[in-house]
């Protein structure tokens, strides 16, 4: 098992004929993802360079392929439209890679798509190593295993995964939830899934300054999964207040979103917080129950 994504997930790519969409479709296929087609209005009936069918609408793509998952590579003004189109066509899992989606568009989507799981926007996607990958994560640094990973960052995630893999910790699923202030799927959403996933035996949680997602995660862990071995890391600990560095969501304002608040929350939930990524494997090893 794994969460959200496995071998059976049938993926369509919105914006498949664009430069980004086409390139990453090729990489997903190379990783073994079951990409079944794509959507570009007006190009219905054509084939992509990978030989995949192109459809005019998500509805047509759904009818022809039975797709279950969607990956969005469209420009920011078209992202919310792509999410609503998928929702109305019946897709219930969507990964929005696009960066720079207006925050009110995201508000509207999350407020009017009950039952749809949206990862992102502005995220690298997710991967269930050895099974499938949706998005832009570099598959070769991942290894199948029993550690679940959730991260607000992209490249920092790869850094952490690389360290885990080198230390012998494979991953069940790694979810890059994205760096925007409003995102479809939060730490808590993923924790809830990992809790019920038999493959996942430990979790690494890569947080960031800004917002209170980490505090919410700590509260959830304390109440619902106190026995799960979990290690956290908070990025941007040296960022100054009032300025967002790169990620729109990574901003400390007043007393909100400070690293101290997050670290304290995790500590009170019994979750050790690594000072630097390279400490994560060691902390994880201390918390993992001995294998039988």
């Amino acid at each position, binding site marked *: 098992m794994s969460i959200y994504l496995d071998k059976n997930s049938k993926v369509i790519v919105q914006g498949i004929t664009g430069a980004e969409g086409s390139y990453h479709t090729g990489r997903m296929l190379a990783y073994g993802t079951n990409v079944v087609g794509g959507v570009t209005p007006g190009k219905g009936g054509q084939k992509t360079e990978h030989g995949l069918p192109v459809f005019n609408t998500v509805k047509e793509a759904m009818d022809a392929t039975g797709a279950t998952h969607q990956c969005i590579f469209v420009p920011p003004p078209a992202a919310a439209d792509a999410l609503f189109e998928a929702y109305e066509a019946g897709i219930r899992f969507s990964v929005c890679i696009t960066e720079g989606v207006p*925050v009110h568009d995201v*508000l509207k989507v999350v407020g009017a798509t009950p039952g749809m799981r949206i990862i992102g926007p502005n995220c690298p996607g997710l991967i269930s190593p050895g099974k499938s990958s949706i998005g832009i994560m570099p598959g070769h640094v991942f290894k199948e295993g029993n550690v679940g990973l959730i991260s607000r960052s*992209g*490249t920092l995630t790869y850094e952490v995964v690389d360290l885990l893999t080198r230390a012998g910790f494979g991953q069940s699923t790694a979810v890059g939830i994205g760096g925007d202030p409003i995102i479809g799927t939060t730490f808590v959403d993923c924790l809830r899934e990992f809790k019920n996933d038999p493959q996942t035996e430990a979790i690494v949680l890569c947080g*960031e300054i800004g917002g209170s997602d980490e505090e919410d995660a700590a509260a959830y862990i304390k109440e619902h999964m106190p026995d799960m071995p979990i290690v956290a890391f908070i990025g941007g600990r040296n960022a*100054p207040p009032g*300025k967002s560095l*790169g990620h729109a969501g990574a901003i400390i304002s007043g007393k909100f979103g400070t690293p101290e608040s997050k670290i304290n929350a995790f500590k009170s939930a019994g979750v050790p917080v690594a*000072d*630097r990524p390279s400490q994560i494997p060691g902390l994880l090893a201390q918390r993992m129950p001995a294998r039988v």
Partner: protein
Amino acid sequence: MNLMEYQGKELFRRAGIPVPRSQHVTTADEAASFVGGNPGNWVVKAQVLMGGRGKAGKIKFAKNAEEARTVAAEIMATPMPPNRQNPKGEPINSLLVEETLSVSKEAYAAIAIDRTTKKPVLMVSAFGGMDIEEVAEKHPESIAKAFVETAAGFWPHIGRELAFKANLDPGYRKALPGILAGLYELFFRYGAKLVEINPLVLTEDGRVIAADSKVELDDDALYKNPEFKQWQTALPLDEDETLATKAGLGIRNFRRFDGNVGTMANGAGLAMGTMDAVKNAGGSFANFLDVGGGANAERVRNCYELVMNHTDAKVFFINIFGGITRCDEVAKGIVEALNTTKSRKVPLVIRLTGTNEEQGRRILADAGMTPVETMDDGAAEAVKLAGV
């Protein structure tokens, strides 16, 4: 994008939110001529993004043209002095000449986006005219909140409930729902991240008027309202944002600090992580720099020059983990950038791993460079090279 008071009030006016009579002027002469033609009691307010105008003496009263000219000239004579929020101060390029209100009460009203519920949150407090973060700390119970279902939108009962919950003076009750409706319309119509009225004044004669405005628009939504372009250029981007834009980066992708280790990484998370690593290694970082996804030669050169020309970096730590970014492209970029740049040169520390790592390392090796193995190694090496 933050709006100045007069810009925010222009949006308030469009949304039917009562604001004081006013005139936006750019010189003391204009201020004098306006007051001369409109007898009454006026207040002259510096138009800046910084807070603390009153304490800085940048809000003054005038009863006639002569007084208006004098106080306007005084206000514009010096820039806003630095404070914690803006350590560089801010030039004063324009003034708002505004009707003086006879204040009976001051309240607070705002709409922001709540990250946890993913909904707009309306906030109302009877503690108006104060720093709201201070109010939140000292009188948290005084801030009444309502989360709005975006499907339903704003309806007057929300305003009525907030007026009761926040214990506003009864004089606010009838006006508040309409004012919040306007605020909500504006919030949605223009894609704002924050709209705030502080203080929302109840006058002696029973009118409810927005005496100040704070509006933060979503940069990502500005394309929907091209009219704001004109305000955007009128607004001072801060220096780091200007530099980032000139280097072809997003305005959030570069920020300077006081240290001596220049940094560059791909991805905001890794770029922050690189800063943290430098700090952990006992050093001090000179900047935050996220080079973004497509790090080609030109982009790398621009970033290199940006850090060399505008920080005190004594070493440049490049930390790349290839995902979308391909290591070979970055390596080519580094080599080309060093060959073509006319900026000063400092020692480079390069960490390069991920997609096409082998090819990247080969390109660097051919140019006589050897990357370090890990981020921590790189940070330690960079701090050592930078000295104290």
